[in-house]
Every structure is written in structure tokens, then in C-alpha cells.
């Protein structure tokens, strides 16, 4: 399919103000309409482009909806086993210490099966960026409960709503890792409005700049939607997210570097 995603088209009398970054491939993303993954991929690749580090960036894709992230991001990437992305990123960064290494993980990958790796990667202060997409559900496998699913939320494995007596509580993993001395910069962002997208880009840019300092792990959570899993249209899902997800996972910086 021949298309120009970045139309070189000139419009007389007008200047180009925004175009899709060339660090995204031309492959059409498979995500559901309105899914935040597309926004986060794009913003991260904009940062890579603007910093001029495409040739020095290596990413690690998780298991989850973004298992094919390597089809969309035009950087060297590795596909990790479920939960292991931060360990794989550790292996890469330890042998390529001057490259920009990031892992990109969902709530199952990072906070269920990968909890051990997540905590220890941050505890070691691995000089990587961990991007954590938190939408409180397992999208790829059909909408099951995630550790970050809210109490009362209906999912395919909590058909009567999440009950803490049976399934425990939403796991605020970002808050946990923020306490670790190995965490250098921890921030929670969103990607559903122009304002939140701009702030997300700033956070990701900060994180990549900080990686040059080699002072510890940068961890950016993106509270996201899952229109399919939540069974809502995209705009409706974003409204629900603002009302419910942000209450449990408030946006903002959890840890910022103190001037040394």
C-alpha cells in the first residue's frame, strides 16, 4: 500500500507545523481505535528524533498489545518474554552502556509476572527508561483483570467487579518503585488530551536526557485507556479514565532529581 504518511506536500502560503515523526515506521498500527499506545509510541519516537538519537537507541518490547511495538518504532528492538523486558533491557544496557535503552511494558508485563524484574531493575538503578502503560486491564488476551484494575471494575475475570477480599487491591507499583534509591526520575502522565500529551513528551524527554547522566532508572507511567477492554468508545473511555483511573493513579511527578 503506497501512501505518504509524511506528505511532502507543500501548500501555497502555508508552512508545515506538525507531521508524524520519521522515526515511526510506515506500518499501520494495529491498536484499537483511540488506544493510547499509538500516542505514546509517537511521542517517544518524536523525542528520539528531536534528540537525534535514533542510531543509538535500543528498545525492548513486552508481551501484551504492544508486542509488535518493534513494527512501529524505527529503532533496533528486542522482543522480551512476558515480564522480562526490564531484565532484557538490563542485559542490553550493561553491554552497551552508552546507548539509550528503554523498555515499554503494560500492566501485566510490568506489575504481575514481571514484578520481580521491575523492582530489582529499579533497585539496581539500571540506567534505562521504563515506560509503563497502565490501563488497568489485559487487552491482548481479551480483557482480564490486571494488578492495577480498580476495585469494582468489571473485567472478563472479575465479572462481578473486582472484590478486594478475593483479588486484593489495585497495585500502585509506581509508588513502590519511587521509594527505591535506584529510581532517579519517576513520573505519572497521561496521553489523552493535548495538554497531557505535551506533558508526557516533556517527561519522556527528561527521562532520555537523564539517561546520559547515568544516575539511575527513569520510570514513566502513562495512565491509559483500553476502549475495547473497558467496552467504551474512545472519548467515553477517556472520560471514564479521568474520573476513575486518575483518582487512584494521580498524575504528576513522584520523584524528581534533586540538584546535586
Amino acid at each position, binding site marked *: 500500500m503506497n501512501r505518504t504518511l509524511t506528505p511532502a506536500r507543500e501548500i501555497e502560503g502555508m508552512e508545515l507545523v506538525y507531521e508524524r515523526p520519521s522515526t515511526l515506521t510506515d506500518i499501520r498500527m494495529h491498536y484499537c481505535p483511540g488506544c493510547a499506545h499509538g500516542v505514546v509510541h509517537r511521542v517517544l519516537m518524536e523525542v528520539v528524533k528531536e534528540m537525534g538519537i*535514533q*542510531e*543509538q*537507541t*535500543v528498545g*525492548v*518490547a513486552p508481551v501484551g498489545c504492544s*508486542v*509488535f511495538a*518493534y513494527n512501529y518504532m*524505527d*529503532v*533496533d*528492538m*528486542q*522482543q*522480551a*518474554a512476558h515480564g*522480562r523486558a526490564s*531484565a*532484557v*533491557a*538490563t*542485559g*542490553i544496557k*550493561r*553491554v*552497551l552502556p552508552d*546507548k539509550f535503552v528503554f523498555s515499554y511494558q503494560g500492566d501485566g508485563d510490568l506489575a504481575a509476572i514481571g514484578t*520481580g*524484574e521491575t*523492582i*530489582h531493575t529499579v533497585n*539496581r538503578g539500571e540506567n534505562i527508561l521504563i515506560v509503563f502503560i497502565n490501563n488497568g486491564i489485559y487487552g491482548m488476551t481479551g480483557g482480564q483483570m490486571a494488578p492495577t484494575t480498580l476495585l469494582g471494575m468489571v473485567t472478563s475475570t472479575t465479572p462481578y467487579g473486582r472484590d478486594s477480599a478475593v483479588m486484593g487491591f489495585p497495585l500502585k507499583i509506581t509508588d513502590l518503585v519511587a521509594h527505591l534509591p535506584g529510581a532517579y526520575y519517576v513520573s505519572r502522565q497521561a496521553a489523552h488530551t493535548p495538554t497531557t500529551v505535551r506533558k508526557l513528551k516533556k517527561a519522556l524527554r527528561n527521562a532520555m536526557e537523564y539517561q546520559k547522566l547515568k544516575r539511575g532508572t527513569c520510570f514513566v507511567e502513562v495512565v491509559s485507556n483500553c476502549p475495547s477492554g473497558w467496552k467504551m468508545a474512545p472519548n467515553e473511555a477517556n472520560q471514564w479514565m479521568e474520573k476513575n483511573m486518575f483518582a487512584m493513579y494521580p498524575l504528576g511527578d513522584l520523584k524528581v532529581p534533586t540538584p546535586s
Partner: protein
Amino acid sequence: MVQHDHEPRLMKGNEALAESALRAGLEAYFGYPITPQSEILEYFTAEAPNRKCVVLQAESELAAINMVFGAAGAGARVMTSSSSPGISLMQEGLSYMASAQLPCLVVNVNRGGPGLGTIQPAQGDYFQATKGGGHGDYRLIVLAPSSVQEMADFVFDAFRLADEYRNPAMILADGALGQMMEKVTLPTEGSLPHSRQSWATTGKTADRERNIITSLFIQPEKMEQVNLALQKKYARLQQEARFEAFQTGDAEIILVAFGLAARICQKALELARAKGIKAGLLRPITLYPFPSKAFTSLSPDVMSLLTVELNSGQMVEDVRLAVNGKQPVYFAGRMGGMIPTPEDILREIERVVSMQTVPEEGGVR
């Protein structure tokens, strides 16, 4: 041709292996403590920083093998080590690495099992090592040392094979080999050069497309192609099969054993010959590829084979397949970390010999 030092050293198996890996230009070691191989991790934490090698004690074997995946995918010469229960944890990672065609060395210092088991030596992981071990159609290249010298030498062989065939290689040792101290002349540093390959994720430069290291091939047509490529590779790998033969020329009973069991059988062989029994020993060195050719060309004098293992009988199945019914194949072994003596093996040899009858009498074969 791998050079060796002139002077031998007295070293523990685990440490000789680790030192050899550093001399092979190891770039990274990720591991986790478990008896009887923690000395490998400890040797690296002491020595690696002085030798331009990354060393990291991971939070688990699960994490360690995935760190190996990442480093291997980034083009580094990398290894890990563990013992049986930890190797079980690594199976997921090894399956992924085989599918993604990544080279690495993994060392299993086999202990008694199953389960948490015991810390004493055993060979109960033969199936796990040689039949893939994790899910899917893949194999590891498996080398079985039976001396501290081979603990050192096989590291170079393993890296060479892993790189050439783009597949994980395993050294299947055991607790005794890991702990024993023997004289060893170590391979010389620099004898096995290594460079980052073009497929590695080192950062996409303008002159190439991005490299993707993955084991996910979601379309079955593609997955089949990947499998066919792996099988073709394993077929080519068969040429690397190695074994050692002791006094098989005129033997009527052939012992078959690997690793520690082979050491015991060598002594049992001496005892048997002293009693006039024409015994010989075949020692597979590569367990995968299995040296089947050693068994297909046995002399017609051979009346039976006796496989000796420290398990319930695992390699004996491959021996039987290779022998293909031409001679009876018997088995003797101990499990759970118990180790037979050469005298125990001699008794087994005598038992088998007593069952042998000459063909004219129409006896049991």
C-alpha cells in the same frame, strides 16, 4: 587453534570454567547463587571487573537468563550458569534464545533431583539438556566434560559452536566436576576472538534497517519457515558430534557413559580387564548432537553394551536408538546424588557378561 598456557594450575572445576570464559573474551556474566556452582558467580564478581567483563548477580535465574538474552541480542559474548532447579527456571529463556537464534553459553552443574533435590552430583538433567528442555522444537548444543581440563577447554568449544550455529550451547557438568580440584592448563587469553555481528541490536545506523531480535512469528507460515531453518541448522550441527573411545578395538562388552560416570567407568574398565573381561568404553563428548556413528560401526565382537549413568536411565534411550537392536543395551545407575564405585560397576559388568551367550547356543540376545 586454541593455544594453551605452558604451566598447569591446580584449580577447582567451577573456577577453571570461569577463568577459561574470561580468557575466551567473555563480555558479560549474569547469574544467581545455587549450590554446587556458586563459585562460578563468585569467581566472576571477583575477577570480571579487572578483565573488562560485566558481571551481575541477578535477582533470580529467571532474570539472569533474560539478561543473557538482552546482552546476546546486543551482540555480546555472554554466559550464565546454574544447577538443575535454576536451569528449570531458565528454560523459558533458552527456548526464546533458540528461536531468536542467539548464541550464549549456559552451564548446568547438575545436582540430584527432581525438585529441590540434593546438592550432590547427578546426571538427571540429560533429557532436559538434550531434548530442548523448554517448549517447542529446538535443541541446545550440549557438551559433557569429564575432567577439570575439559571444564576449561569446552568453554572455548561451546562459544565457538554457539557463535557459528547461532544457538545456545550448554556445558552439562555435575557437582563433582564443579567441586573437584585437578591440574589444568588453561587456554590462552585471546585464542577465540569475537566481534559484534551485523544482526545485533547495537543501534540502527543510517546504512541499514532496524534489527529486531524476536522469537515471535505469529503467522504460522512464517513460524514454519523459522522451524525449518532451525531444523536445517541442527542437521548441519550433526557434523560436530564428538566422542572418545577406550579399548573398544577388541571389546566384547562396551560401557557407555558421559561426564563423571565416564570417569568411574574408566576405572571399572581397568578392573574388568584385569579380570580378563574384554571391556571397552565409549564416552560421548557432545550429548547433542549425539555421536550415533560411534555405535553404528561397532565390531562384530561386541556382544552387549552397558550404559552407566547417574540417573534412572536417560542417555541409554539414545544409545538404544543408535544401536538399533543390533546388540542388547543394558543399564546401570544410581540416582539422587548417590555415586557408584568402580567396584559397583564391575559387578554390573560381570552380571551382563554372565547373561551373554555365544550365538551357536541360540542364547538370549
